[in-house]
């Protein structure tokens, strides 16, 4: 999935302490200020935008840790 689209949704919904537009694809989103609670906002925005549904197991660092991980996970969900 488009990293740029994900980056824009992060900018709008993740309440990070840094400018999301400057985040590299492998930058650690949790170091940038993402928490388990703000993950929920971001998840809802991503689900709405890409018309997917994350599973409970995906709501952690393994999926939300970076833009690249998110992009791969969404790709998988879309394909499923």
């Amino acid at each position: 999935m488009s990293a740029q689209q994900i980056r824009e949704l992060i900018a709008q919904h993740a309440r990070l302490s840094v400018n999301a537009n400057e985040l590299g694809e492998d930058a650690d989103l949790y170091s940038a200020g993402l928490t388990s609670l703000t993950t929920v906002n971001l998840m809802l925005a991503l689900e709405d935008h890409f018309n997917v549904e994350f599973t409970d197991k995906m709501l952690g660092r393994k999926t939300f840790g970076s833009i690249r991980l998110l992009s791969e996970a969404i790709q998988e969900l879309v394909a499923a």
Partner: protein
Amino acid sequence: MPKPLRIAEISPMLDFLALTDRVHAIGREIIAQYADEVDRNARFPSESLEALKAEKLLTAYVPIELGGMGLDISQLSKICEILGQYCASTAMIFAMHQIQVGCIVHHALGADFFANYARDMVKHQYLLASATTELGIGGDVRSSICAVKIDGELFTLDKQAPVISYGAMADAILVTCRQSEAAAKSDQVQVLVRRDDLTLTQLAGWDTLGFRGTCSCGFSLVSKGRVEQILPGPYAAIHSKTMHPFAHIVWGSLWLGIASDALGRARIAVRAEARKNPGVVPISGTRLAEADIVLFTMRSGLQSVLADYHRLLDANNQDAFSSFGFAIRVNNLKISSSNLVIDIVSRAMLICGIAGYKNDSKLSLGRHLRDAFGASLMVNNDRILGQNATMQIGQRD
């Protein structure tokens, strides 16, 4: 035929019963004797703490290999409950100290500094305090403004802390902060600072309704130390595995102690009433039976989260600790126990009547009631409910 248990398997259990008897004895003979005076003068319960230290109870959760008692969380919970029956301030100090010990035991013993520190804690019975709340942040434990500043092997750390229970009496304070000045506010670490390396300037006093003996004054904290005093790993992991569940379990346990002592006093009142007219069960007896069901509910909530926590600790799966399902259940325990303790003490008040309302009677419930109201404020229930609402939306299991 089942294999007979070895002595080593039985004895910790037997010893634990002996230990709880001992804690009750200390409670009756020392802690209860000072409880009213501690409350009246809002002073630190030093006699009680000395008695607990003499039994090495401050290191009850430190593993046996390091000299501690090696108790588990259920056993610790039981001790908090017993202490809560005699003096809620003493119990709260004990409980908050154990939360800090839990963080070290679960997350830091792999590091030489902390393994040695644990041995020193056993030897000297150090008392550990906590500074999570921060001016400008409030009770949001997962955010910090202050940051640890590292220079080679050394650090400095300053925090404006509106509430540090027994801060002035503690041998060390565990402080949450950002891991560097560049870090996001949620990118935290937890740092142990020792009394000799810190200066506390009092910002606010502690003349409160309840938990008066915790001496939870506000301080401007200025400290320094060596980088080895930073607990390994991000605070996020310490929080979800230990700080969060541990805190709500030990707090819920001592609130249960407050509630059960209130009902104990109510039972005395009912018995006195019943003696006046043998054969007729007084209405207060029915009220007591009802109140005991509420106590049963409160205890069941605690038992359920304890069972959950034991299961996760045994499996030691970090993902499970950070799951929304577990965090919600821990928060449910906090919200429900802190409400039920007020409910139960109020019911006891109705049963005891004027004797409960008086400050100078044997059945007085004033201290219980004032202490009970603190429970919903230490990490405000509305804040916790707000987090649960968010997690309900995110939860998928």
